[in-house]
């Protein structure tokens, strides 16, 4: 056995301890770095078997210690579980945020909603019926009707904006560019691309036998982020790369991105269509909506779409359309079956009803519609779609409140105090309307609010559950990958002591050599 063997051993021991202290240093430096996983030195005995150049000696087989690898504290199973839940959490989070917004927009609980305006309109009509030729009361009806229709318009527009922000407006394809679905899908493509690049670097580094811990941490962070968007399947490969797929469609395989998300403009029910394309633009999946049943992207598409039995922005907009349209039709039908007042002769300030009077200077006409979608033309559309956004008061009536048909058709010319028709209009609040599914306007509104409320309630309950689960998983994962200062300190002291000991061994061997050299001298 060589005299200097002890020196080599001690030197190896010194540098090993030094290296471990460097790792501890790195761990402590990164204690607050997001996505950093604690690194550990894998130390094993160094035997002659490890290094073939050292001469064989059966008695002196052990030659100190060596760092085999620097590994990360990571639990693959926990990572996958965490990502699955993260995907689900983001789905409910997005739904919940939108549900809150819908509820805030359609707020009926305080006295600023459609319900209170509707009540005021009925009240004003009821008052008019008691005093039908009072101009102030007629004007009051107009004011209340304007308030109500403005409320319909603004609530509908806010919902429409919310929907456009999510999935764009299919009538204006440009709006797709700023929409959430487009932003997410672009970001997703960037991230998938980065994963492919990282895969490439990791494959190379692994082949060289180094530990690309920094790259692996980066990739894990990216995978976490991708899982927020889509429920991706992530598979570890032997060569160090990960394969990402959605359903049966490969998105990243090895060092290439094989699937690209693209968003195209759709129709009124689904304004945005999510597609998966291959690198050359060929369509792999024409409609990927069913593949993203979890994750933020799926939630955005669901909220912006029109799936039955789910809370969608469109379902609330449709309800508003129906309510506005049926209310308008009910009031309009009464309006045209009654009689309004005209000034006769013009400029005299004397108002009369029009019943059968052919000496009138003003030609007798069917009363104008009350609620219309175009104030100047005074018409009402054939279908309810989009009516809540446009509903307004006919200019003819707004300019001349005497044209409200407060009187019944049978009232005589001078019977301007007849409010029978106004009474019918105010009683419309109690009449069931077939177009509203046999509900009154009040009931329909309550049904609408409670429907949104119970669906939003289901979403927020699920959100809370998922939040708890993923919080627990996050903690669990943190307890695996996180850095513990006590642990690092204990290790630091351990390796510091062993460094000191190695140094002592070094100096002892040195003394030995000195002794031998002195003997020679």
């Amino acid at each position, binding site marked *: 056995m060589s005299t200097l063997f002890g020196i080599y051993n001690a030197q190896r021991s010194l540098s090993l301890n030094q290296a471990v202290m460097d790792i501890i240093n790195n761990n402590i430096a990164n*204690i*607050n770095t997001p996505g950093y996983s*604690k690194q550990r030195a894998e130390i094993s005995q160094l035997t002659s078997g490890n290094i073939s150049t050292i001469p064989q000696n059966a008695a002196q087989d052990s030659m100190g210690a060596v760092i085999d690898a620097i590994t990360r504290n990571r639990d693959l199973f926990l990572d996958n579980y965490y990502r699955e839940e993260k995907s689900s959490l983001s789905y409910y989070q997005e739904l919940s945020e939108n*549900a*809150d917004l819908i*509820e805030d927009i359609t707020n*009926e*609980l305080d*006295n600023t909603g459609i*319900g*209170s305006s509707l*009540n005021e309109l*009925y*009240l004003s009509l*009821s*008052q008019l*019926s*008691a*005093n*039908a*030729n*009072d101009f102030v009361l007629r004007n009051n009806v107009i004011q209340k009707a304007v308030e109500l229709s403005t409320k319909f318009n603004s609530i509908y527009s806010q919902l429409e904006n919310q929907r456009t922000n999510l999935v764009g407006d299919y009538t204006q394809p440009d709006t797709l560019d700023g929409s959430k679905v487009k932003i997410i899908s672009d970001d997703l493509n960037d991230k998938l691309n980065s994963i492919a690049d990282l895969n490439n670097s990791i494959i190379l580094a692994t082949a060289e036998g180094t530990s690309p811990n920094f790259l692996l941490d980066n990739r894990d962070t990216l995978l976490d982020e991708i899982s927020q968007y889509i429920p991706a399947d992530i598979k570890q490969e032997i060569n160090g790369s990960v394969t990402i797929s959605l359903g049966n469609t490969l998105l990243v395989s090895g060092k290439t991105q094989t699937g690209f998300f693209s968003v195209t403009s759709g129709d009124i029910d689904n304004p945005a269509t999510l597609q998966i394309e291959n690198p050359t633009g060929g369509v792999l999946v024409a409609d990927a909506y069913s593949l993203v049943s979890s994750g933020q992207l799926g939630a955005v598409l669901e909220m912006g779409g029109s799936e039955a039995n789910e809370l969608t922005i469109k379902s609330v907009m449709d309800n508003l359309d129906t309510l506005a349209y049926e209310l308008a039709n009910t009031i309009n039908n009464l309006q045209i079956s009654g009689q309004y007042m005209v000034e006769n002769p013009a400029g005299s300030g004397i108002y009369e009803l029009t019943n059968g009077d052919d000496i009138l200077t003003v030609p007798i006409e069917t009363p104008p519609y009350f609620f219309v979608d175009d104030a100047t033309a005074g018409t009402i559309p054939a279908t309810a779609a989009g009516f809540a956004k446009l509903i307004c008061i006919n200019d003819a009536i707004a300019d001349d409140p005497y044209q409200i048909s407060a*009187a019944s058709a049978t009232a*005589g010319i*001078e*019977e*301007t*105090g*007849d*409010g*029978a028709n106004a*009474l019918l209009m*105010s*009683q419309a*609040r*109690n009449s069931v309307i077939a177009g509203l599914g046999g509900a009154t306007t*009040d*009931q329909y*509104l*309550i049904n609408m*609010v*409670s429907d*949104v*409320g*119970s669906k*939003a*309630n289901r979403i*927020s309950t699920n959100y809370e559950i998922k939040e708890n689960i993923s*919080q627990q998983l*996050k*903690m669990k994962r*943190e*307890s695996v990958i*996180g*850095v*513990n*200062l006590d*642990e690092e*300190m*204990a290790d630091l002291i351990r390796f510091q002591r062993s460094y000191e000991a190695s140094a002592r061994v070094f100096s002892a061997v040195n003394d030995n050599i000195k002794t031998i050299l002195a003997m020679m001298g």
Partner: protein
Amino acid sequence: MYQRITNNYINENVLNNLFTNRTTLIDLQRQIASGTKFERPSEDVLSAITVLSSNSTLGKIENYIKNIETAKLEIETADRALLTSLDSVHEARELTIQALNATSGTEELNMMAEQIEQIIQQIKDLGNTKYGTTYIFGGKETNSAPYTDPPTTVDDGEGIYYGGSASGSHEREIEIAEGVTITVNLCGEDIFGQYYKWDHDADDDPTDLQAVGDGLIATLSKIKEQMESSTPDKDIIRQEMATLDNDLQTLLTSQATLGSLLARLDITERLHKDDKISVTDIKSGAQDIDYAKAISDLKFQEAALQASLQVGAQIIKPSLLNYL
């Protein structure tokens, strides 16, 4: 067996607990500030439905109460007019009895005719009673006085002409409860009648005018005609006296109708007000917080937050570093 507890784990855990505490605290604070249990229907769907249905019901009840109040004012005005006209009729009746007295001569009768004429004018004025801008005895023609001189279409007419809505089509209705409407007005012609003469054959001969009309005004006018005549016929006056009693009866009946209507409105209004209180109670039960409970919850939560803060500070601080 122990779990590996990292520093970030402790941080995260402490922060989570603090967030939970603060969220609860903020929610309680919001409840106390707004006085309501929930902000969005989804937080308590059933209570939200109760609140919305209550709002709808309260809206209707308030509408009906308002209608009843307006109707009561109009009916009370009509009632006062009828009361005054009763006095006038009694006065006329006494005059008539005096006229039938054997000692009354033509001259005295003529003087009485003057007084009867005043009473007739007074009744005409009462027929034109207004509530606000509304003529209440003209049926649906609320904008113009129902009692006027005969219109020019009635040639050379004279007397008191009723131009309001015809009896039977005079009803102005208001809603006092869901699906329940009442007529708030009486037809002036039914109560006071009318009486005028007109040139029915258009021969411009003022001596053959035809008399039209019945009711109180007609009776009084006919009595007046006899009184001012140069040859008063007391038999006719006696006959008309009997009719006058009928007219008085009509007035009393009308007044009774209005009285019972007022009573009905009072009862209905009281019912609505009771309803309003109970519906408001239900709404408040669904929506409003119990301050005593909310405030003690708040205090409790404050204490919990304090405790979390203290424990959190204790647990985060020490590490092996402190002892090296």
